[in-house]
């Protein structure tokens, strides 16, 4: 366990560990890929949970010095910036000008290149698709020194391989993408309690037309027979009298300073937390106007929240399965397995993905319902349960998200990602990752 603590470049889940990783930053977007390493993996903020951001015995080539903006077209909402620019930095620049990110994951501490490499999705998937859908073009630096401008019309095969390509096709030096216009920096949020999967699907179907953002928190550990949770839907609020384009606070002072002892999170405390969370609203339904920061990034205000799981780290599990033809049977089966296993998930996030087809060869989202769970690293028993879940996802023709994965088998990966063989021909010969060597 010590090596996890001492690894200066862990993944966000602190599991698995990687040995002998070297790290250096690309000095500028005009630099070349270093030659002296057998394997190279681009590294942004290391917010991937499992091993897609690890490179055992290889080099992590950082983007932290590629943090400059290149241009901003304020009238049309098109931004071009270096690959290491974070969503945090972008929001600070664009929100006061009445623009917002077209798609954002649940943290603003990700880089633009990381968002492309994982073709990230957010609460507006049903309306806006993935981040990749909004990318206009980018420059890809290959290990042979080639610089390819990639777009839907120029080097399109490289463009679609790199979106969702897990950083394996080369190093993105800069990217250009479209922003979305906002009337205010505030969200009109409604929260509705639900007491069954059926209710959840009904709420989703009702809300998708009118609400740009939907997501649900689900309690997977209560003793109820069906699932319960809170359905959250939101849209950009109309202009506010005060602080209409207010930017999020710069840097939080709250941080988890130490690793929590491992006994703190157990099935009882997790159940108690879920009970409390379910009751937090007191009423069945409530509406508030809240700032985009707590709406999109509730965990960003506590730095290093990943340490609450202790040194053992934690595993995330996110899958998507179609539900329209079987009324969510596959999802219900998986929830049942998890409940019977008694392995609690602290936060379970449930959302329907829309019909917009992903463009990347290896993009995760597809039409269906997605569930994201996190588990303290319970060891082999957890791995066994997740393997059972994978079987159901495979049969349902769904998929598991590599950005959160630390354990899926090579067999499953091939089934989840049928365009793998096509993708492989675009992988840079010098690029690799711990994940890639595990599942290839």
């Amino acid at each position, binding site marked *: 366990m010590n090596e996890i603590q001492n690894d200066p470049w862990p993944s966000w889940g602190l599991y698995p560990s990687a040995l002998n990783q070297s790290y250096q*930053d690309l000095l*500028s977007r*005009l630099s070349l890929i270093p030659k002296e390493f057998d394997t190279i993996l681009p590294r942004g903020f290391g917010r991937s949970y499992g091993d897609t951001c690890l490179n055992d015995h290889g080099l992590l080539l950082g983007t932290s010095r590629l943090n*400059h*903006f*290149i241009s*901003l077209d304020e009238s049309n909402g098109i931004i071009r910036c270096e690959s290491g620019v974070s969503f945090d930095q972008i929001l600070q*620049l664009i929100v006061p000008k009445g623009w917002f990110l077209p798609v954002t994951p649940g943290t603003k501490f990700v880089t633009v290149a990381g968002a492309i490499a994982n073709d990230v999705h957010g609460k507006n998937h049903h309306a806006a698709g993935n981040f990749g859908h909004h990318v206009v073009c980018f420059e890809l630096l290959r290990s042979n020194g080639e610089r390819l401008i990639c777009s839907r019309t120029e080097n399109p095969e490289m463009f679609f391989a790199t979106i969702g390509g897990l950083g394996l096709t080369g190093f993105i030096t800069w990217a250009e993408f479209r922003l979305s216009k906002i009337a205010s920096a505030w969200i009109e949020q409604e929260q509705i309690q639900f007491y069954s999967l059926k209710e959840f699907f009904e709420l989703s179907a009702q809300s998708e037309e009118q609400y740009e953002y939907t997501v649900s928190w689900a309690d997977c550990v209560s003793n109820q027979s069906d699932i319960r949770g809170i359905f959250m839907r939101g849209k950009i609020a109309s202009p506010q009298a005060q602080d209409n384009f207010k930017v999020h606070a710069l*840097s939080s002072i709250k941080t988890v*300073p130490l690793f929590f002892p491992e006994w703190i999170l157990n099935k009882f405390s997790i159940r108690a937390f879920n009970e409390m969370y379910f009751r937090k609203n007191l009423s069945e339904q409530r509406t508030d106007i809240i700032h985009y920061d707590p709406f999109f990034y509730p965990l960003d205000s506590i730095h290093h929240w990943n340490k609450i799981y202790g040194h053992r780290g934690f595993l995330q599990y996110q899958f998507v399965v179609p539900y329209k033809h079987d009324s969510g049977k596959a999802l219900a089966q998986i929830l049942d397995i998890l409940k019977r296993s008694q392995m609690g998930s602290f936060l379970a996030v449930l959302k329907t993905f829309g019909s917009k087809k992903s463009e990347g060869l290896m993009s995760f989202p597809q039409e269906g319902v997605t569930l994201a769970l996190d588990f303290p690293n319970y060891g082999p028993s957890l791995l066994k349960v997740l393997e059972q879940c994978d079987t159901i996802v495979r049969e349902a023709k769904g998929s598991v998200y590599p950005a959160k994965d630390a354990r899926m088998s090579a067999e499953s990966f091939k089934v989840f990602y049928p365009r793998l063989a096509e993708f492989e021909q675009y992988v840079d010969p010098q690029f690799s990752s711990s994940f890639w060597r595990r599942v290839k």
Partner: protein
Amino acid sequence: MKKILIIGATSAIAQEVAKIYAHEKAELVLWGRNTQMLDIIAQDLKVHGAAQVTNISHDLNDLDAHEKTVAQVWNQLQKVDVILLAHGVLGNQLEAENDLDELLQIITSNYISHVSLLTFLAQKMREQKSGTLAVISSVAGDRGKQSNYVYGSAKAGKTVFVDGLRNRLFTAGVHVINFKLGFVDTPMTKDFKKGPLWAKPNLVAQGIVKGIEAKKDTVYLPFFWRFIMLIIKSIPESIFKKLKM
């Protein structure tokens, strides 16, 4: 519109300071060595709102060019409101103990180049009778210790020089401010193991701009270094010399 000169403009802290002034729609001149990096930074500052950015690419250790280049800055800006001297190198202490080149490199980059520049800049500031000269120094200059006394001595010399200059320029209405920085997480310190005392460059930059606005004389950044150094300076030398610091 504020007019700002940033010397050593490619440093991480200097870039963050420049961004704050860019947001205020200032006009900036960036002086550094790496032309390509200066172009990248200038583009970034324009996106952040800078009214105009001009680059001067010249090695800061080329002392013979200082006077001419300072004149060039005034040609561009006419009047300068704030000057930040942010360049310097950490160097390698162990190497400097045996290698004269390394020793002189550290002293030149952190002291000689600064005092030469300050001398020419002071002439111009005195003529225009306004403006602020801000110098980035280090807490390492507060007390000599074996791990970095070469670097520290250059910073200490600079502190005395800057104090004297502040005194001299006071009657001319020119303000001189010395920033003593603690640990900052920048490319210069990438090989250090980071702990809770380490600060991010953007927060240090905010402190620098605030200090300039408030016309402070000496500012420790982050503020708690004032107390840390107070304690370190209070240790009697008879004990201090035995410590491994």
